[in-house]
């Protein structure tokens, strides 16, 4: 997986990488997936077991495939809008707008810690949309990818485990261009 460019999603605030073989950068690619009925129907049918597991039944009751698809489309639209607004608020200065509202540190390779953090947000924080990013300065992030996360640990499923690998690839790439400490991994989710 090779990075072919870094793009300014929101100038001076939010960047996203583009991988070889992909037509657009990760921010655009992920949100395109999250509004594609075809992609979402296939995804939730494939992961029906996770969607309808005890974990979600306790929180929301039995979620149908239709409910999952349409709530994802709605949430993704709000998420996209919110990120744009928040990133633009802090783009002119060092104000930690993204960090305060929606960026949650992800301790690399430490799935137990990540699990703890997820739980710490309480049972009502149940959005499954995640954007993964590396913070290179206050309010300046590089998005490496994103996923619908239905299980507690990223390592639990192939598609979320891939996101961990992508974070590492982006960290390496950033180190090559002078960011020696590009290891502030994290994920962005809908703020409250």
């Amino acid at each position, binding site marked *: 997986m090779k990075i072919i460019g870094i793009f300014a999603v929101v100038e001076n605030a939010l960047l996203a990488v583009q991988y070889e073989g992909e037509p657009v950068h990760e921010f655009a690619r992920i*949100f395109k997936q999250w*509004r*594609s009925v075809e992609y979402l*129907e296939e995804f939730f049918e494939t992961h029906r077991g996770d969607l309808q597991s005890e974990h979600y039944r306790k929180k929301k009751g039995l979620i149908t495939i239709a409910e999952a*698809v*349409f709530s994802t489309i709605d949430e993704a639209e709000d998420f*996209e809008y919110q990120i744009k607004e928040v990133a633009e608020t802090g783009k002119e200065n060092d104000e930690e707008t993204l960090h305060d509202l929606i960026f949650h540190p992800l301790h690399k390779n430490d799935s137990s810690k990540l699990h703890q953090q997820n739980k710490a947000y309480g049972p009502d924080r149940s959005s499954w949309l995640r954007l993964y990013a590396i913070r290179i*300065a206050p309010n300046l992030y590089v998005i490496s990818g994103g996923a619908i996360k239905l299980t507690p640990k990223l390592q639990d499923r192939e598609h979320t485990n891939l996101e961990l690998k992508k974070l590492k690839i982006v960290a390496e790439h950033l180190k090559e261009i002078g*960011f020696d400490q590009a290891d502030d991994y994290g994920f962005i989710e809908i703020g409250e």
Partner: protein
Amino acid sequence: MDTKKQALEKLKGHIKPDTSKWKEDARWRRANKGWLRKSQKIAFDILQALRAQKKTQRDLAREINVSPQQVNKWVKGRENFTLETIDRLEKALGITLMASSHHVHIQQLLSHSFKTNYKSVSPVKEKIQSAEGGTRVIRLNPQEFTTTQQTG
């Protein structure tokens, strides 16, 4: 960690301008949200019908004589379908893709056994055999139709 100024300095020459047009697209989607949701629901029903009938998008394309690319475009959820396309899809899949609220309302009325009898038997026109053996057409005024209602 660098300050933002330092970081931006390091990134100079590495950042490419965003050509994905996502902001324009996001604005367009917000402005067209109403009909897009209808399109998404149709796309979802098509996909679920194909899944239930164990058919592929290619099978459907063959049945209604369109390209597989066209079917794939439909199931993304941002197609402004024509009524003709909806009708073809409904026939091919044997499902209802678009039940109007009026239709739903009528269904509810019928289920409450509200009956209406239209007494006039004629449609728009009625043929009358003239005494001369020729044929003439008399248009009926719709107001002449008599209507009675029965409840039960």
